[in-house]
């Protein structure tokens, strides 16, 4: 039988070793699945790395995918810290995109168009989190189910908007809105799809949330609620309010990401599946890898950005379905949480 003993102070070396080990395991298992599919694992990983890291165009693609992951990931890192498992970032992103599009399309274009779009997007993303966050904070309804269901609802809402009331006048037969005016478009880096203002926003947000967490009294409350709800209760901390606020923050961050996608890349609101490539789900791994430190998202978001860009390559070069992203995400998440237990406990073989 396997026996577990609590390891009160796991060493840094053990921690790092275990995490690298489980990530290697995840990539090995994914490789085995590729082999079962009929593509050699080495060929797959070779294509993935060569087309992303070994190519300027590929690097730009990685960076472009990193932008929404940075924003969503840093918000989710905070939410996970208080055990608010917000799985609804995908829907919150869509709502942000829709709110941004509303500002771009229906308000007069001006110098403040873009800031207004981001504000509206953050508000919409945050508000879309409200039902789930409130239910969790007040009546303890599991937020994984509610946020996930609201993703589907958000998808249908955007679909309704682009095929109904917001459908463009100049588009024929297509389901999307008219193009945004110039003042509502983000500048790009050279001839890439990197909308750098959103990238800057993401970096600033990751750092700001790190500061919030470690240097403010709200951050202190957040850490106590996350680590020991019981201690927080004895200290008289408003636990529901902290959970609610964190939930809204994470939704707002996802809303910002949605604005970035429509204002930086598409210049219009369109079919939900084209706005987001599952950024909301991939960001869960980004946040889990960051282990509660929003600033670490600066490292983990590019890693998952690489995997997303790599998924595109595998699809185009090796004719693999984009679902490989789900294989990576599922395996990485499973291996990571398993690794967490291996860090927290000493494993002993006993009779």
């Amino acid at each position, binding site marked *: 039988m396997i026996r577990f003993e609590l390891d009160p102070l796991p060493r840094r070396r053990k921690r790092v070793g275990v995490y690298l080990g489980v990530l290697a395991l995840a990539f090995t298992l994914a490789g085995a*699945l590729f082999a079962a599919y009929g593509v050699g694992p080495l060929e797959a990983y070779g294509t993935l790395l060569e087309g992303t890291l070994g190519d300027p165009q590929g690097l730009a693609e990685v960076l472009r995918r990193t932008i929404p992951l940075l924003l969503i990931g840093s918000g989710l890192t905070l939410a996970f810290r208080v055990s608010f498992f917000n799985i609804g970032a995908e829907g919150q992103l869509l709502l942000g995109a829709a709110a941004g599009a509303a500002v771009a399309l229906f308000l007069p274009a001006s110098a403040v168009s873009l800031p207004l779009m981001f504000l509206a997007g953050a508000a919409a993303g945050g508000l879309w989190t409200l039902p789930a966050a409130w239910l969790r904070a007040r009546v303890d309804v599991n937020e994984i189910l509610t946020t996930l*269901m609201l993703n589907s609802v958000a998808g249908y809402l955007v679909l309704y908007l682009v095929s109904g009331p917001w459908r463009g006048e100049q588009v024929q037969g297509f389901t999307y809105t008219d193009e945004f005016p110039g003042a509502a478009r983000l500048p790009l880096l050279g001839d890439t799809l990197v909308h750098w203002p959103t990238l800057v926003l993401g970096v600033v947000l990751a750092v700001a949330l790190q500061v919030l967490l470690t240097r403010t009294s709200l951050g202190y409350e957040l850490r106590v609620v996350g680590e020991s709800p019981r201690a927080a209760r004895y200290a008289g901390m408003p636990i529901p309010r902290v959970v609610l606020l964190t939930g809204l923050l994470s939704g707002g961050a996802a809303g910002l990401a949605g604005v970035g996608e429509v204002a930086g890349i598409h210049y219009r609101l369109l079919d939900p599946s084209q706005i987001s490539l599952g950024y909301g789900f991939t960001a869960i791994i980004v946040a889990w890898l960051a282990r509660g430190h929003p600033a670490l998202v600066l490292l983990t978001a590019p890693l998952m950005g690489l995997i997303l860009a790599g998924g595109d390559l595998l699809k185009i070069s090796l004719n693999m379905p984009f679902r490989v992203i789900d294989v990576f995400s*599922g395996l990485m998440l499973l291996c990571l*949480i398993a690794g967490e237990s291996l860090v927290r406990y000493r494993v002993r073989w006993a009779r």
Partner: protein
Amino acid sequence: MMEEFLQALTRALSFGTPLLLASLGALVNERAGVVNLGVEGMMAVGALAAFGVASETEAPGAAVCLAMAVGALAALLHGFVTLTLRANAYVSGLALAMLGLGVAGLLGKRYEGAILFEPAPELPFTVAAGALAVVLWGFLHATRPGLVLRSVGENPAAADVLGVNVMAVRYLAVAFGGALAGLAGAFLSLAYRPAWTDGMTAGLGWIAVALVIFVGWSPLRAVLGAVFFGLLYYLQFRLQDQSQVPTELFAAMPYLLVVVVLALAGLRRTQGSAPAALGRPYHRGER
């Protein structure tokens, strides 16, 4: 009028069958104290396994068996990570859902768009699901093993003192939940829509998980819950081409309803009927 009613009922039963099968499975593992949110993923791999076997061998019996075995295996992975390694069960279930959908999408690519020339009949699945609900109700409330299972979900420490192998019961219950999710998947790809398309589970697994809470962990009420959601799906198809209301609203209805149902359950505190040790790991000598 009567004809219309009968048609509605038949369609509702057909929609409700995979929901009922999957939620009965989830109900059993939750009564033993284990949460598994990965139903959607287990259903997807089950559906693919069944379709693969049926299209290669034309043996529906073998297809169903393999789907259940694959579902159970996927569930045991969740069991290992949460029961033995004690990882967070909610996150593990989420990861299992992603992994299952990913694996089914990847390995199912070769069957994408293929159809089954001899679809399995729906009725045996529906009858089996209904019968199973009754049998499970009897099992849980009138037999000793059923009592043991419930005790493991309510108070594992007490069960342990009485000589119950808590870990073994929980592993068995998780495997059972996975097998039924796999069976629900087999119904989808063999009978309901005898074909393979990526993402054909279409969120049914998540609704099944919510249904367990909705029906207060009762197998008999699960039948009513499944028929209710089945009717909703039927209405969605029935009304979408003849009303002024946007079709997207009907399509979003089941998901919205799940949120409303969970909210009502929370507000009315029916979650009080949840197994007391639900989602809590148990290890002897630790609290």
